[in-house]
């Protein structure tokens, strides 16, 4: 659509009622002029009217086609739908209330569920930016399957020496029980389960 046409139609959107009246007036005066001419040519008033309408073609079709080009039809239709919807809601307050309630419950439940999922699965470390670039590191024991925790000194070595990663964080610190000779000693914060670092 050419810009000029678009602007014209945009303007027409706000003059809908006036333009509609003008179109009706214009068609009416057209028919009257034709009727007058017909009568001047000797037709009876009834004949003249029928002939005028016949020559004009379908009045409603013309109006519809006119409306299609007059303004932005889809915007007009949306306005109409919204108005219609609001009217319906006003007529039926019980239904409106129920619908509102359903929407409220539905939306809050979905939001809550999403928040959990986001917190637990998608962004488990809220203070870390660019979580998609995070990787996890765990220790392994030669000859054994599975992963185990990284010791605190190893973690510190990684932090100090790695040039590949920006930063390391320990996601959990826990203690373990060490056996020293014949006694057992509780060492707090000696191990971290996992190291998270970020490039």
């Amino acid at each position: 659509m050419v810009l000029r046409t678009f602007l014209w139609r945009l303007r027409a959107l706000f003059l809908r009622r006036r333009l509609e009246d003008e179109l009706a007036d214009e068609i009416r005066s057209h028919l009257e002029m034709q009727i007058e001419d017909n009568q001047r040519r000797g037709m009876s008033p009834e004949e003249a009217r029928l002939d005028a309408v016949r020559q004009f073609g379908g009045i409603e079709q013309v109006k519809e086609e006119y409306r299609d080009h007059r303004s932005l039809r889809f915007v007009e239709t949306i306005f109409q739908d919204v108005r219609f919807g609001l009217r319906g809601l006003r007529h039926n307050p019980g239904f409106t209330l129920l619908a509102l309630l359903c929407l409220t419950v539905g939306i809050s439940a979905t939001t809550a569920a999403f928040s959990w999922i986001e917190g637990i699965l998608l962004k488990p470390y809220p203070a870390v930016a660019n979580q998609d670039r995070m990787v996890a590191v765990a220790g392994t024991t030669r000859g054994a399957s599975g992963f185990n925790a990284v010791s605190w000194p190893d973690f510190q070595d990684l932090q100090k020496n790695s040039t590949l990663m920006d930063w390391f964080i320990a996601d959990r610190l826990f203690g373990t029980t060490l056996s020293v000779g014949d006694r057992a000693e509780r060492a707090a914060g000696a191990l971290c389960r996992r190291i998270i670092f970020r490039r």
Partner: protein
Amino acid sequence: MVTQRNEVLPGTLNLLVLKTLVTLGPLHGYGIARRIEQVSGDLLQLNQGTIYPALLKLEQMGWIRSKWGVSDSNRRARYYSVTPRGRRQLVAEEEEWQRTSAIVARFLKTEKA
């Protein structure tokens, strides 16, 4: 009526309307429709109503403008007049149409060798 009346070819209505307005000056929709029928020697079958969507489109393109006025028979009517841009458009469309019809005519004249 014995003679066959032709429908207005799609796309030619603009040309007919612009030409009418340039020739006759400001005119209402009924006048334009009557004029087109008369000039065609009543060979064109025009649903007069179709003139209005066409006029609207021409106005949106800025080729014509409209104003409410009073007709000879003292009736309120909307008068359409051509704009300077409309005149330029008419020249362009006339040329285009003449070129097209010349090409078609040349094809119709060719005979089997």
